[in-house]
């Protein structure tokens, strides 16, 4: 097997992925920086903290949980921002990572997968998929809590 060629081919594919992430990353990182500087994030966190504190859920991860099912590039941007802000080995960063890894861009995926079919009704799929995502978020919360 031509090891070197194969590796290079793979790197090329990886590079394409990286380049395809860039536009969304620019958009999200600038928006996230502005949100933080303007005080909007802390205001929203303050607003939601009575509810999230009650369950011990870190409100810092909330924006990510909302963006995750909608946009892959957006959630990667926001995840990067979260990890950078709170430190790569913090509980919040680890929870954000587990959450992103065990959920998907649910709505985008369903749209793409059914686009070429004649299917009109996807309520059952969406309900089940969203339920799975919620369980994923819950798991991320529990696992990051137990281990650290």
């Amino acid at each position, binding site marked *: 097997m031509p090891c070197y060629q194969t590796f290079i081919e793979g790197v090329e594919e*990886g590079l394409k992925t*990286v380049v395809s992430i860039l536009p969304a990353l620019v958009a999200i990182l600038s928006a996230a920086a502005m949100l933080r500087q303007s005080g909007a994030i802390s205001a929203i966190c303050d607003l939601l903290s009575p509810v999230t504190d009650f369950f011990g859920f870190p409100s810092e991860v909330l924006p990510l949980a909302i963006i995750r099912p909608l946009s892959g590039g957006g959630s990667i941007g926001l995840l990067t921002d979260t990890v950078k802000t709170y430190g790569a080995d913090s509980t919040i960063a680890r929870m954000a990572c587990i959450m992103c*890894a*065990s959920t998907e861009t649910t709505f985008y995926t369903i749209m793409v997968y059914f686009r070429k079919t004649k299917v009109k009704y996807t309520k059952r799929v969406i309900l089940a998929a969203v339920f799975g995502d919620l369980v994923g978020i819950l798991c991320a919360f529990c696992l990051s809590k137990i281990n650290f």
Partner: protein
Amino acid sequence: MNYIWSGLLIISFVFAALGGNLQETLTAGLSGAASSIEVLLSFAGIMCFWSGILKIAHKSGAAQFCEKLLSPAVRRLFPRVKNRKSITMNIIANLLGMGNAATPAGVAAMCELDRENGQKPTPSHEMSRFAVLNTASLQLFPTTIIGILASCGSKDPFSIIPLIWISSAISLTAALLAEWLLWKRGDSK
């Protein structure tokens, strides 16, 4: 995403205007854009490296091995489906984290399932099960996440992998179970 992004900008402008730090907010936006390139470059190398390794794994027969390993599970999940090749391909590509390969195989598999379903407007049990399988993330090696953690200075970025596996397995099971329950209840839409 259009609404979300514009919403984010509008919210930050409103809060900045209220708090009187419009200037700082704009500067922060620019530095955020500038930092996106740094962030991307810092994990680009790691991502490229792993894509290369995964490509070798794929070409060296590891994928065929996976296919053999997976076929009993796929048969059990989709007992009524005649041609399971695209489905298996899609699952392997997902497991290896090759999103670029997973989507074409997945769309092809979905079209096949659509034909077997007689192209009805309501999806078959198999179709929704397959979609749910793809909206729950199954990935053995989460390249991007490891890359981000490593680039931001994590001491041990790999230690998160077992936690990701546990969490993915639980959320996937939950999603499949929910789909099954909804189907049992006779909810075909």
